[in-house]
C-alpha cells in the first residue's frame, strides 16, 4: 500500500508542477534567477543519488567493489565520448564482467 501511495503522490505532484507551468506560463519567460538553479538540479540530484547508491550499504558509507566503480566510470566515459546513452550499458556491463573475471 505504501508503494502505491508514494508512487501516486509523486505522479500527482509532478504532473501538477508540469501542468501548472504549461498552463499558466504560456507566452512568458521564467526569470534567469530561477532558470540557473533549475538547470543545476538535474546534475546535482543525479550525482548525489549515484554516489549514494554506490557507497551506501545498510545506512553507512562503505567502499563499493572496485569492479562496479570501474564499470560506472567506463560507462560514463563512453557516453561522454559518443553522446549515446546506449554505451553506458554496452561498455559498462562488459567492463563489470571482465573486471569480475579478472578478480578486481
Amino acid at each position: 500500500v505504501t508503494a502505491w501511495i508514494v508512487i501516486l503522490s509523486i505522479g500527482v505532484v509532478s504532473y501538477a508542477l508540469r501542468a501548472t507551468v504549461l498552463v499558466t506560463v504560456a507566452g512568458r519567460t521564467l526569470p534567469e534567477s530561477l532558470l540557473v538553479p533549475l538547470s543545476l538540479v538535474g546534475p546535482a540530484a543525479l550525482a548525489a543519488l549515484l554516489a549514494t547508491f554506490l557507497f551506501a550499504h545498510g545506512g553507512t558509507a562503505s567502499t563499493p567493489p572496485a569492479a562496479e566503480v570501474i564499470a560506472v566510470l567506463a560507462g560514463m566515459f563512453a557516453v561522454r565520448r559518443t553522446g549515446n546513452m546506449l554505451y553506458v550499458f554496452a561498455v559498462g556491463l562488459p567492463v563489470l564482467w571482465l573486471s569480475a573475471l579478472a578478480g578486481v
Partner: protein
Amino acid sequence: MTTIAVTAAPSRRALLWEGCRDISPLVIGVLPIGFAIGAAIGTSTVPALAGWAGGPVIVGGAAQLVTIRMLDTGAAPAAILTAALLVNARVMMYSAAIAPWFRDASRRQRLLVAFPLIDPTFFVSAARFQRHDLDQRGRLAYYAGAAITLMAAWMGVQAIAIGAGSALPEAVGLHLAAPLAFAGLLAKATAGRPQVSAATVAAAVAVAGIALPFQCGVLVGVLVGIAAGIAVSP
C-alpha cells in the same frame, strides 16, 4: 499564365505518424533505461504492478528509478517524494519552454500536453516546431504521435524487464543497471563547469551524509551542489 505551386498542409494523421517516426531514435536511446528500471522493479521488494504503474504515473525514468530504489531500501515516504521531485524538476523548464507553442490550445489540451512531457517528447517536438510550418492542430497531432510512441515503448520494455529481471543470474550485473543508467544520464547532463561543480559537490556531500536520517544526505547534497554550481556560474 503563371502557375502557382500550392503545397497541401500535411494531414493530422501524417503529422501523427511523423511524430512517431521522429521520436523513434530517442526511444531506442531510452530503452536501456526502461529495461534497467524494469529489472530494478523485478529484483526489488516493490510490488511489480505498482512499480510498473510508476512509468505512466511518474513519467520520468530517473525519478521512477529513484522511487523504486528508495522504496526498496525502506526510505521515508517524504524523503522519496522530495528526491523524486528534485530529479524531475528539470521538466518544469521544459514546460516553460514548450508552453508558447501551445498558446492557442485550449486549457484541456494543454493539460493533456503536460502529461507525457519529458526529455524525448520535449527535444523532438521543440526541434520540429522551430520550423514554424505547423498550425496549432498540427503541433498537437505531431506531439501526440511522439508521446504515444514513447509511452507505449516505455511501458512495454519495463514489462519485459520486470519478467526477465528475477530470472537472470546475478552475474549478468543487473543490480548495477540502475546506477549505470544514472551514470549515463549524469554524463550527458554535465556539459559545463557549473554542472560539473554541482554534480561533484553534490556527490561528495551526499556520501558524507549517508548516515543522516531519512536519507537526507541526498537532499543536502543536492542543495549544496546547486549552491556550488551557482557560485561558479558566469
